[in-house]
């Protein structure tokens, strides 16, 4: 009798104190088979190397650029920690890489993205070291590339700057999670429907949840950009946007 009580107490306390699974939107530790983990890491590596060179250049440049880099980094830190409710009844978070991609180009954001992803993998059990390559590829390579590409394209077409900023940051955010869904589907193809069936399932989980958040990220990026452009007009900051 005593033993039984003891046992149920043990089970109860175990249930009570077992930490919930780290809720994040990155692929969790150990959740990609090793060949895929290595594949995505290798694919991200060149972007990181180019990015490190670029960041080095910025750090040697005038304070103006350094300050803007700090701003872009701070933006990623804030936005990627805010888990926001979505219409699907689950939560996800923005990435914040669009602003920096517009200001500095895509590879610089690979470096800033890795800093944040490492912070979350090591301190928050959010994402992971084995899945770092895949998460870097989606959030810090493709996301910024898409943002940069769309911004450049829309500016070339002489579209309104705010609209260009909004679309580039929102779509960069959305693409990050589309890539995450693709990565998971490649690693876990459905036994019946294969890759496409899996993709449908993962896209429902990630991309649909992400749509309102992408819009929020677009709006917030426009606000920060508006502030920066105002200070630029006053002559207190030099924006070398990629126009």
């Amino acid at each position, binding site marked *: 009798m005593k033993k039984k009580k003891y046992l149920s107490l043990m089970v109860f306390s175990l249930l009570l*104190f077992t*930490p*919930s*699974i*780290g*809720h994040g*939107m*990155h*692929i*969790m*530790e*150990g*959740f990609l*088979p090793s060949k895929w983990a290595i594949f995505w890491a290798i694919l991200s590596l060149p972007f990181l190397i180019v990015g490190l060179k670029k960041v080095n250049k910025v750090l040697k440049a005038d304070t103006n650029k350094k300050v*803007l880099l*700090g701003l872009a*980094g*701070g*933006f990623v*830190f*804030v*936005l990627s*920690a*805010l*888990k926001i*409710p*979505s*219409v699907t*009844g*689950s*939560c*996800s978070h923005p990435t914040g890489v669009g602003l920096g991609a517009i200001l500095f180009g895509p590879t610089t954001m690979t470096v800033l993205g890795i800093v944040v992803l490492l*912070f*979350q993998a*090591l*301190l*928050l*059990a959010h994402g*992971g*070291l084995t899945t770092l390559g895949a998460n870097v590829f989606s959030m810090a390579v493709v996301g910024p590339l898409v943002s940069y590409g769309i911004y450049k394209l829309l500016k070339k077409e002489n579209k309104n700057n705010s609209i260009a900023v909004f679309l580039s940051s929102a779509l960069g955010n959305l693409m990050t999670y589309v890539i995450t869904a693709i990565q*998971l589907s490649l690693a*876990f193809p*459905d*036994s019946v429907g294969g890759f496409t069936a*899996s993709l449908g*399932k*993962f896209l429902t*989980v*990630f991309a649909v949840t*992400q749509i309102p958040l992408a819009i*929020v990220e677009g*709006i*917030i990026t426009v*606000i920060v950009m508006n*502030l920066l452009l105002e*200070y630029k007009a*006053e*002559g*207190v*900051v030099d924006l070398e946007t990629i126009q």
Partner: protein
Amino acid sequence: MKQSNKTNLLLLFLAIVIIITPLLLKKDSEFEGADGQAEGVIEEINPEYEPWMEPLWEPPSGEIESLLFSLQVAIGAGAIGYILGTFKERKKLANNR
């Protein structure tokens, strides 16, 4: 108020509305992380899959986790506030000259 400030406030308000709407529309949802759901999908597709690595360290409780998340936001928000503050001050100094 300046026109640009008005626009920014309006945009901020819009963002807040988009964030709050799901909470009102889906009152009985749990609003768990999308990655937890992804884990469910993985289990469904491949029930035998076992994660081959565990996180090196996990926050011991939800409280510690939110502490660290707040720390992340604090670092970022501090940097943004400081930098935008310097711009504002620079503008003031330039105008006084």
